[in-house]
């Protein structure tokens, strides 16, 4: 256990070159930490029984129930097939920020890879969208053989670039995500909370379950400045002189308000929101997420 936990430290994971190995290390270690609970996961689940009505497919009749009760009941599931899990990975320039060995994009990569690996383990169909101000890469959700490798390759290729703009890529995404499923968005969400959530709402209305992973560096949350410094925006390249006083007070208030706003807006829209710091062990984020999901089931 100790060894496994050590490997879940982001800075240790950063030393592992092979992304699949990273994902395997995270997920396997994390599963062993859960004592292999049978209840986890988001695969096809039993929902309810419904009375048979003419025209229904006889393949879904539960014949055991019929033998016991002489009544025809149809067994209903949450999904007709395996769930589609699509990870949306933000690869904008701001994701390159790092105050320690693991940058936000690295952390996001590990997270995405771990989720995809978990999906693959569940025999669900995994998909990937890499975006910044437009869609840079798209791997259609599928459970075919070799899908995990394709996704991991796409994740590996994702380099921070350009600015974040949720509207444009999500509009395109609606065309591709024809089937309902699970959409996981991993980003630093440097935009207005209402605007971010509004962008996700069409997906939500189409029956998708949307989960937001807000990835932030500790330095972004609590910047430590002892002297005025000239900050340069990594996306816009604007420069601004920042004083330690401002960074310690007003900035922290603003970033906290931003997180709170994002969380509130997401809750209102029925979207799950998780804030993860890149200094935290990766399995903590996953564990928290799954616990929440398990509670919802």
């Amino acid at each position, binding site marked *: 256990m100790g060894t496994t936990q050590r490997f879940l430290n982001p800075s240790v994971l950063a030393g592992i070159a092979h992304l699949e190995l990273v994902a395997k290390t995270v997920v396997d270690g994390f599963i062993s930490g859960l004592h292999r609970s049978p209840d986890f996961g988001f695969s096809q689940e039993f929902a309810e029984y419904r009375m048979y009505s003419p025209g229904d497919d006889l393949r879904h009749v539960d014949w055991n129930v019929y033998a016991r009760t002489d009544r025809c009941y149809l067994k209903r599931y949450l999904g007709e097939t395996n769930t589609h899990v699509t990870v949306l990975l933000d690869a904008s320039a701001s994701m390159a*920020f790092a*105050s320690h060995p693991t940058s936000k994009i690295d952390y996001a990569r590990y997270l995405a890879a771990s989720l995809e690996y978990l999906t693959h383990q569940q025999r669900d169909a995994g998909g990937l969208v890499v975006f910044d101000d437009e869609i840079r890469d798209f791997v259609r959700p599928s459970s075919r053989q070799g899908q995990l490798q394709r996704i991991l390759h796409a994740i590996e290729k994702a380099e921070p670039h350009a600015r974040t703009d949720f509207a444009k890529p999500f509009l395109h995404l609606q065309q591709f995500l024809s089937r309902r499923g699970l959409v996981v968005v991993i980003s630093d969400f440097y935009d207005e909370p209402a605007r971010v959530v509004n962008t996700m709402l069409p997906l939500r209305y189409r029956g998708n379950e949307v989960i937001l992973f807000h990835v932030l560096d500790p330095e972004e949350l609590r910047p*430590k400045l002892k002297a005025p410094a*000239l*900050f*340069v925006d990594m*996306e816009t390249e604007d420069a601004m002189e920042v004083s330690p*006083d401002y960074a310690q007070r007003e*900035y922290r208030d603003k970033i906290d308000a931003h997180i709170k706003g994002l969380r509130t807006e997401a809750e209102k829209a029925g979207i799950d929101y998780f804030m993860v710091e890149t200094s935290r062990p990766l399995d903590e984020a996953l564990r928290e997420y799954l616990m929440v999901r398990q509670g919802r089931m």
Partner: protein
Amino acid sequence: MGFFAPWFLAGIVAAGLPLWIHLLRQHKNTPRPFASLMFFERRTQSSIKHRRLKHYLLLALRLAMILLLALLFANPFIRRAPVPGSGKKLVFIAVDHSFSMRYGDHLERAKREALAVVPPNELAQAAAISDRVELLTQPVRDRAALEAAIRSIAPGDATSSYAEFARFLRALPKNSGLPVEAHFFSDLQKSAMPASFADLAVAPQVTLQLHAINENTPSNFAVQSVTAPARIFGNRKARIQATLANFSAEQSSAAPATTSRSCTLLINGKPADSKTVNIAANGRAEVEFNDIEMPYGANRGEVRIDGADPLKEDNRYFFSIERADPAKVLYIHDSRQSPAYFRAALDAGAESAFEMDALTPDQAVNTNLSRYAYVVLSGQTSGALETNLQKYVNGGGGLLIVLGPASTAVGRVPVTGARILEGRYSTREGDRYQSAAAVDSTHPALDRAAAFDGVKFFYAAKVEPAQDRVLAKLSDGTPLLVEHHMGEGRVLTLTSGFDNVTNDLPLHALFVPFVERLSRYLEGGETGQSNLRVGGAIELRKSKERGAAADVVGPDGQRALSLKEAASALTLPATQEGFYDVRTASGRRELIAVNADRRESDLTPIPAETIALWRGTGATNAAQPVNGEQPEPVPESLWKYVLVALLAVAAVESWLADRFTPAAREEPKPEVRRQAA
């Protein structure tokens, strides 16, 4: 307020450096990438103002440091009236101990009078003056030490230089930071005055008191000069001329009184001849001693005026004469080069100082070259002889290389290895002949007589001189005579020949003195240091390349060189009258006679009005108020206060800078890690 060295204030320009660091560099903040500036606002931060304010304090301290440093070097002073009776002055007691102070009891009188002015409990310093200022004590209040120092002053043989003394007095107030009361005890002879009276001026903070130690009518006989050959050869006899002088202060319109004096010539301490001469007051008389026999070796000669004289030390004049057999010269030549002209020139020399051996290269290989005063190599050579010649020259020997037309084919000068570019023949159609154009007449080997006037050169090898000194050139620029130094020795290369074919030099009258000059130079006898004045330099070695030790035994019979000086000193100053027995680094032994400058014998004092003028260049009793008048303010240096202020500012700056700058250095720098594509 003023500055002793105001030009150091130019250092204030350096104040621009901290200004640049603080005001210009401050805005060159190293940009730090940050994920997003979404939550930052563009406005002036109060903390930045605060921090800049702190930096302004640091800037002010740094500027103050530079200003204080410049101020420190400029040495500011304020003029402050001396507190009467405070005794804040330096009493400088200087006693002249030049050669002229040997007159009668002048030096003893000067010392007695100097002892009388030693202050009981005041800061004072003692010095002995001749051609330089010799400090005997530090500024002290110890009367006993000062008196002991003054009593220890011994008569010297150097000349006196009042200009040097005045120069020292100009610097003394600055160095001591105190007004100076200078007492100078001297015979104040006119001959020690500088050419310009301005050189006598002392600083305004110096009160100069001149104590004349002289007679009203000084009279002095002196041997002013002696002319004697430095060397004689063979059986020749010496001819010695002496000039006797009668210095007298008597100015009479009547016919000058004539004094009869007996003059004796001593060789190695024994009287060799004696003559009586009549010398008029302020007049000169010549004495000539002819056919003086000299023993072999170095001889100590002395011309002495007999009879009592208050300044008896200048009644004698030392000179040295060396008698030796004619030096041997080796002429190495092949069958094409005849030594006849050269031999004839040597034999015709006035002193017949040289005898020539002529050998072929084959014969010369097994010859001991060290027996020869110098060697002439006519033509080319190689192999063992060339190696022997190189060793000979490195050891201090002289070599004359005469390049004939055959040398051009070899392409290099033997021994020195200089390149021969080509042989220049004057053609019948062209220039017909070359003449010597540029002759370095200052060189000892070439005097004015040997300017090669009218000599026609028909051939010369064009030698690349490289680092060598070209003593003479032909009209087309071809080097004619080139000097090359090797170790302790020297090599002269004549690019033409000593025959009557390549030039017509042997047919000219100047050939004989030319050969004589060359011979003296190559032999090493041209140094002219057999007779020197006190203060002159005795040459011990020509270069520091070799560590062969030199040795000097002074007139007092003591070795004059320390071990270090013996191994490395190029010269030794002659400080005493008498004979210096010198063995130079090249092994040559010389007996050098050293005499005091005879200007010291003229005791005519400085006119009273000149003395008054000199005294007037300094302050007039600045520290001693007269009749209740306010004393003139004297400058008081502030450098100590400036130094303390500078140290204080430096300490505060250091503390402040330590508080500011490390914090900036320790700031965490967010790293932007971009993965390689």
